[in-house]
């Protein structure tokens, strides 16, 4: 409802709140699964998301569990592990949680600058950020190392998180 006297204080506060809703960048680490919420007494679709607090340090792992999917286009439902998602603190949910909204790029480029009294030195740009992909048969193991069996204990279909330089950081198995 429009007021003839311009924006009210409550509207201004609302505006501020909207601005304050924070977005986080994360990576899907499970396929969509059903989770039960005791607050709303219902099942909902959820995923786990690997939230990296600092893009320049992808080695740290912080998975946020059971994030409700709020995505009418079902893109997130169908998204593969390793897809980047933006997650947002929800306002309409009954509890505070993050919901998935869309796709993001995986890697970032970082330019560090050294400030001195006489000027600045710009360092070379470095690429950070992880990539996610299926582990290959070779990576999963060979019969020589697995007692005659073709593969080790990690099932085919497991994903690996790799650093920008291609080193394996850790393994994600698709189990919620």
């Amino acid at each position: 409802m429009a007021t003839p006297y311009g924006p009210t204080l409550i509207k201004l506060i609302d505006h501020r709140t909207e601005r304050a809703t924070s977005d986080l960048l994360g990576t899907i680490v499970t396929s969509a699964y059903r989770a039960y919420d005791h607050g709303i007494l219902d099942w909902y679709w959820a995923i786990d998301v690997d939230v990296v607090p600092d893009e320049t340090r992808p080695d740290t792992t912080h998975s946020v569990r059971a994030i409700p999917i709020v995505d009418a286009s079902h893109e997130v439902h169908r998204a593969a592990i390793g897809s980047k998602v933006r997650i947002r603190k929800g306002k309409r949910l009954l509890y505070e949680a993050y919901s998935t909204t869309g796709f993001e790029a995986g890697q970032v480029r970082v330019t560090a600058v050294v400030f001195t009294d006489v000027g600045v030195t710009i360092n070379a740009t470095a690429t950070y950020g992880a990539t996610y992909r299926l582990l290959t048969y070779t990576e999963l193991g060979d019969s020589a190392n697995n007692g005659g069996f073709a593969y080790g204990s990690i099932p085919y279909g497991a994903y690996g998180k790799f650093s920008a330089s291609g080193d394996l950081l850790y393994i994600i198995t698709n189990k919620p």
Partner: protein
Amino acid sequence: MITTDANFKTRQDALARFPKYKLLSYDPADSWESIINGTNAVPATDLTPYVTMIDYGFGQLHIVMADDSALSFHPDGGALRTKIRQGRIIRLKEGFEGLSEESWIWTFSGTVEGTYGWTYQRSQAIQIDFSAFDRSNNQAWRRRPITSRDYTVGADWGDMFYNIVHDIMGLSDTENNVSRYWSLTFDKNSNQIVMLPTWEALEGLLFGVNARPWFNGAGKLSSILTTQNRVTYTLPNDDLIQRYSAKAGNTETINKIILTYLSNQLSPVEGGHQVLGTAIVTTGFFIPQQDLDVYWSDDRRTRGRNTTMLVKQSVNGGLIPVGDESYQEIDEFHGRVTIEISSWVPVLATSLMAIYLAAAILPDLVVTLGFVASGGFTISVGRIIEAVALLTMLILMMSLGTGQYEVWGIPYEMVYLEQQHIAVKSGLEFWEEREREIKNQFVSTDERAKILALNALFFEAMKEQPRTITMRTDARLEPGDIIQTSTGVKFYIESVKKSLARGGAGPNIMELNCYRCVL
């Protein structure tokens, strides 16, 4: 820096000079364009004789005046009370005594915000105070979201800027100092500002050329450069500086800039392994081969890779196998399921029909009873052959049935991905980082993003070194100018402060809030 004519410059550089100013109030019924052009219909009211003090700050004037004995500004009936009411356009002009007013320069243009204060107290001078803010303070521009026209590859960013300024903000060319040609072109198919407040849209566009929007002293929209590798004005003499101080303060400035931009390269985004399409077919006897094209979506635009066929129900699901089913991925949008019926099936069916027909004319054998042919059975030789042929055909018919197929694969979409370039002060632990995120979807290459992110970082780093310089007034200096002293140290002017005294006498000194440049 405001450009002036030679006469002004001579006065400015002269040792003996008397700065003067004029404060004028205009009727808002006249358009800004006519006021800036000096073609306003209602003549301006000169407020200068009443002024006791003006505080000149960044984008705002605080004016204190004294009323005359006629109580001209009495809020309930003064003759001049409408001249400083809300919405009046206030302009400040600075120059020198003895200098023709044509050479003076406009250093502030804005509107009165709010009602003015007027206090009468017996045996004291009547004091009036009010404030005027520059044109960027327009809340409609600050808050109301707008949508620009759509520009495609090759269009100049300046064109979109001009569209917003001209068509949405309604500024005429007189009111706009920003060039339309930036030599910076869009490189994505569709570029549009969608539901963003006007001022943020202008900031977003100017960010691409390391600048920010500003309404200058004359009331014209212009841009302030945020770069530091330039000098606007070299001080002719360091003695002009009377006071120089580095403020004590926190150094909690931003030291990390995250610039999120939208790449102009399409990248595939994969979905999970899933059913991309289905095909159902009923085969017939005499169709030797059937091709079924399976698209991953009805609009035939979804892409997929690593596709395989899963046979849910085979055409060979009947009693005897009758054909082959195969699958081939044609392109990223579709694949083809091919069903080939073995050639013996139509051959056999044809020959069986021939047999069925031929058998129909076979005469029956007759078995008679007794000597007189009075009755008996016939043995239906032909019927038995007919029945065998018919049964075989029926089995064939039953075997040829419905095939049902699913094509599985990994769907992917080609999208413009958001990329990030981060400019960060070297050697920080992550808890020491104070970051600012900037989003600009018109920026599309890493090279450009790097330049912009670095410039934003340099700008923030500069704020760690705030300096206050008090120097001899130079009305030409504006925010965004970079002054240089004889030692080569550069200062970025963030805002100018000065106090203008009674009766039109301009200030002899002014205070510059600066940052020492890092470059």
